């Protein structure tokens, strides 16, 4: 286990020393500041709207903006998970850096696990920082507090960890470029599949829904986002016709069951296990 701790330290500090963490943080802070500025302008006009439509329209607006902000956070975290890790195994194999590590008394799977934990330690706090930045900015400015915060952040974190596992698995099999292409194609597939499933759900097109489910099984990231979006748009708002709009816009039109959470946890663990297994067997 000491080796895993050392390799986790090595991975995290590589991200830190290469200023990946700093760049992500600076841009993340810039994003939160931009969001807050935009939100302040909207709130100053929303006072007039509330005069017409009452509290509900205002709350829907805040809900929409929170969901929009968290959608960007979800997207940024996913991009960070891909860009940070896509080169970590294939790049070290290509550059031969891995040879000096793999010839130490280290099991190959410890190298993969150390990298996974190292990047997780970077991704999850980053996600929590940005999410809380959005949620509590909205709260302090408008008094609106998004519901189900821990669950929403947990689901987004699970998405990034699933992608991280997939990226490491790709790194043990493909070149960096191929791995990046495969990850983006899969993400794009899941994105489109998710929309097909939602629209199919609204129009009661069963085949379209099934197609979306299959893409979610291949890449469960977007399905988890739809669950997050649903948690951000509480059932009470659904009673109002307009209250459903933000949720549908951000993908909660057709909400996966809780089994998808279990599936994604299993997916993350199994894919990570496959990455460790393949890396242990391949030539370096």
């Amino acid at each position, binding site marked *: 286990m*000491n*080796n895993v701790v*050392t*390799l986790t*330290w*090595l991975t995290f*500090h*590589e991200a830190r*020393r*290469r200023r990946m963490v700093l760049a992500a943080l600076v841009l993340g802070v810039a994003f939160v500041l931009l969001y807050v500025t935009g939100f302040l302008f909207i709130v100053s006009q929303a006072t007039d709207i509330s005069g017409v439509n009452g509290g509900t329209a205002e709350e829907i607006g805040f809900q929409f903006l929170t969901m929009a902000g968290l959608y960007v956070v979800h997207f940024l975290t996913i991009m960070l998970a891909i860009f940070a890790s896509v080169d970590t195994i294939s790049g070290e194999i290509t*550059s*031969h*850096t891995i*040879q*000096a*590590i*793999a*010839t*130490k*008394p*280290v*099991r190959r799977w410890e190298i993969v696990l150390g990298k996974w934990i190292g990047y997780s330690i970077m991704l999850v706090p980053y996600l929590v920082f940005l999410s809380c930045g959005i949620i509590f900015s909205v709260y302090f400015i408008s008094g609106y507090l998004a519901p189900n915060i821990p669950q929403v952040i947990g689901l987004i974190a699970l998405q990034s960890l699933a992608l991280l596992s997939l990226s490491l698995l790709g790194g043990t099999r493909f070149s960096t470029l191929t791995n990046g292409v495969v990850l983006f194609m899969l993400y794009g597939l899941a994105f489109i599949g998710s929309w097909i499933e939602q629209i199919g759900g609204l129009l009661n097109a069963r085949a379209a829904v099934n197609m979306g489910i299959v893409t979610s099984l291949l890449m469960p990231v977007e399905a988890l986002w739809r669950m997050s979006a649903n948690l951000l748009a509480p059932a009470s708002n659904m009673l109002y016709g307009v209250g459903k709009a933000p949720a549908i816009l951000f993908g909660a039109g057709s909400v996966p069951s809780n089994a998808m959470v279990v599936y994604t946890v299993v997916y993350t663990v199994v894919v990570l296990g496959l990455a460790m297994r393949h890396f242990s*067997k391949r*030539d*370096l």
Partner: protein
Amino acid sequence: MDKLVIEARGLRKAYGHKVAVADLTLEVPKGEVFGFLGPNGAGKSTAVKMLLGLVKPDGGTATVLGNPPGHTVTMARIGFLPEHFRFHEWLSAYELLDVYGRLYGMSVASRRKRIPQALDLVGLSEQSRRPISGFSKGMLQRIGLAQALLNQPELVFLDEPTSALDPFGRMLVRSVIRDLKAQGTTVFLNSHLLGEVEATCDRVSFIREGVVLRTISLHSLATGEVQVELRVDTVTPALLAALDDMVINWRFLDVELPGSHPQLMPLTVSEQSTATAVASAAITAIELTVAREDMIPRVAERVVESGARLYALTPHKASLEELFLEIVGMEDSGQ
């Protein structure tokens, strides 16, 4: 034979249709400095990688320090300087050795003691806090050597350890190898530089197309047959008779016999009558082969005793380079 540190039987590795190592069988006893020689593409690096567990062989068996290659217990007792010495460049030299020391399972106290020693050994003490990204290739190779020796290994693999080093660095590596040998450490040296191998190795295997062609002891090379070029005023039958019992074979260097190449006419002692027959033809140079280097002074004495006037007596010991060309083949030597 001493206890074997490396034992390989019929190792084979192919990448698709290309066979990198065809049938590698070798033994390296404890405490030996073993040289591994061959032209580019001979399978040397693949063989080293198989012995380190980096590459899985398609066939054959191997044990390293009594365990299969890559065994974690074994790897704690091994040091390896890769041919492509690339490390995490964002670390400083000290930090790199500290990370590797942790992976070797060394305690904090042990690392604090050993890291400065290793840096000092390779002449990088003053650069210990500098990021490796600013290191020259030679410095990278030096830090590679330091990490290979950090755990005071029982077996060290050095894959082209001086490829990026200046003459000072090469002298340093030779000195390190000699020190390792004195400490009883086994060294597996994979190098193109024959002079380096000749200066440091006890034994050397010549490999081509993944097969060991021949293994020789460099001690026997140092003490073996010597060719001597002898130049006198005239080669007489008396001179040849005087040398007869000392010489393994000889050839005249400046005589032309019908049907023979003037410079390549080996004659054995048994053909002395032929030699005697041509000795009257103003021959002045002969190449002799004697069994040992210490026989050369006696050759000089016999020449003088025979009445010949000695102009030159030049020994030509067979070099490793000549052996390399002979064993591996001229067609591969320039690759």
